[in-house]
């Protein structure tokens, strides 16, 4: 099927406009991170008057960025790993067994994803605070509390995507393993998981991104010691100065890992979305 000249030009125009819309903020982020402070204080410049890497050095001392970064790394990594581990078992059960409550489980879990976060915020805040007062288990303002919260946030979608992946693995493989004497768990670990590695990796990155980017609970459930990047990045504006060049430098640094991870795995996300949506 040939493309007409009109279609070709239409395509070029649409793509140019979309690309400009997407690129301009990214361009400003990257170039402004290399600007001296006066460039971001007196009007806007398209290009740094004197390109410098100073903002990338200063950003660590203006706010305790290293602490926020470590907090975010610890919280997001542990939440992602635990979330995927829990999701693997749940998805295995949903994909390979027919049991009473299977439908209810799937629907309930997916629908919580759609509920307003604000609905959980106030009760969880109270539960965490009161649990701390009553039992001494510090969940409020601690990284543990954040980890548990975030790992549950990414759980529904992780389960959904993994069920899609597991369903696409032929049951013949399971049966062959079972004939060889493998129990259900060995089938899961030695047959299904190796075949679903891309899906598991994609889900891990998704869970990491969810925790890395969460703002609402981070703004309420943390104190100075457990603060994550989501809240900490707002500390660059003081009463006297807004260090826009350092904000852009810090934004760039915290974005690069997740963007690279996401883009490297994007086709597995597409595959996971399709696999999940087909059913």
């Amino acid at each position, binding site marked *: *099927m040939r493309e007409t000249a009109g279609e070709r030009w239409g395509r070029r125009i649409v*793509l140019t406009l979309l*690309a400009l*819309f*997407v690129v301009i*903020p990214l361009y400003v982020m990257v170039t402004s991170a290399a600007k001296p402070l006066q460039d971001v*204080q007196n*009007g*806007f410049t398209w290009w740094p008057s004197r390109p410098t890497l100073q903002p990338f050095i200063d950003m660590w001392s203006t706010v305790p960025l290293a602490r926020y970064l470590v907090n975010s790394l610890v919280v997001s990594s542990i939440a992602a790993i635990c979330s995927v581990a829990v999701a693997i078992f*749940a998805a295995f*059960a949903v994909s*390979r*067994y027919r*049991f009473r409550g*299977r439908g209810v489980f799937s629907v*309930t879990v997916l629908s*919580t994803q*759609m*509920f*307003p976060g*604000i*609905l*959980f*915020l*106030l*009760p969880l805040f*109270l*539960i965490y605070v*009161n649990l701390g007062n009553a039992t001494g288990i510090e969940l409020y303002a601690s990284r543990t509390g954040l980890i*548990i919260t975030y790992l*549950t946030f990414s*759980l529904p979608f992780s389960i959904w995507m993994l069920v899609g992946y597991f369903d696409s693995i032929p*049951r013949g493989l*399971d049966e062959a393993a079972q004939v*060889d*004497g*493998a*129990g*259900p768990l060995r089938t899961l670990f030695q047959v299904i998981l190796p075949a679903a590695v891309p899906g598991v990796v994609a889900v891990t990155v998704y869970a990491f991104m969810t925790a890395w*980017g969460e*703002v*609402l609970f981070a703004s309420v459930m943390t104190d100075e010691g457990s603060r994550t*990047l*989501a809240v900490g*990045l*707002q500390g660059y*504006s003081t009463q006297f100065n807004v260090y*826009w060049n350092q*904000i*852009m430098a810090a*934004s760039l640094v915290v974005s690069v890992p*997740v*963007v690279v991870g996401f*883009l490297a795995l*994007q086709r597995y996300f*597409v*595959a996971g*979305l*399709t696999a999940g*949506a087909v059913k």
Partner: protein
Amino acid sequence: MATSTTAPDADQREPRAGSPARGPARRPRGPRRSLLPYLLLAPAVVLELAIHVIPMVVGVWMSLLELTQFHIRNWSTAPFIGLENYRATLDLNSAAGKELLHSFWVTLAYSLLSVGFAWLLGISAAVVLQRPFRGRAILRALFLTPYALPVYAAVITWSFLLQRDTGLVNHVLVDQLGLMNDRPFWLIGDNSFWSLLVVSVWRNWPFAFLCLMAGLQNVPGELYEAAAIDGAGFWRRLRSVTLPMLRPVNLVLLLVLFLWTFNDFNTPFVLFGGSAPEQADLISIHIYRSSFKTWDFGSGSAMSVALLLFLLVVSAAYLLITNRRRDDHA
């Protein structure tokens, strides 16, 4: 259940049939087998209960209490006041009720416009990127970048762009193009709504693009070939092949995007630094601020529960209408 050996379930329930009798075979296996799926689900169920279900129930309970700052520390002392919180916050003649109603309309307009534009950009990009050409993979990666960025990094960058004196937007509009005489404020006043909308579309359209792209992969190429042979032009193919084939994806996508934008907290919270202007006072921000400003968690919970009920009704109506229409066509 596992009586027939030909059913797929039955095969799984007798996995060791061909294996020599070892340890597990001596133990009674029947009950353990049927318990296994529940054991596998247990961690997920416990977490969902602890973080989603129980807090939701607690939230409904809280909305029936006089849970003001005097009772926050020890909420068992908060008196039960029935539907008083609902009456107070949803009373449209009171100041609080008027503010909530205003916030509701702002949120509704914001969601509908944001979803509409995000879908439009997403379908445009998905359709023009359907055919392979040089640079397609790069453009696809570029278009997905806003979605992959952490929300705060993306929105902070936008708030820099929208600064009155040091932002790119005013620099281009006022200094370079000379379209306006005085520099407008973009983050306060009437403009703040449109700023919020643009940022939200920028953040959300890649998700629409991703889903629609995945959906288009399932459209068989022969359909387009057949349509082209019949002399169908671009728009005709879009209307008669692409959109009908994308219908299942669109049904889910539009609902999910609507719920996400309606509940959006992150974009306004980061863009306006926690104090959204009245014109961009989304409902999540509204509840958040009124709860933590006055520490009146009772009325905050009442508003949250009302929000949930509204979204449930909207979702149910949406699913009902779209399902009925599908039956009509069948």
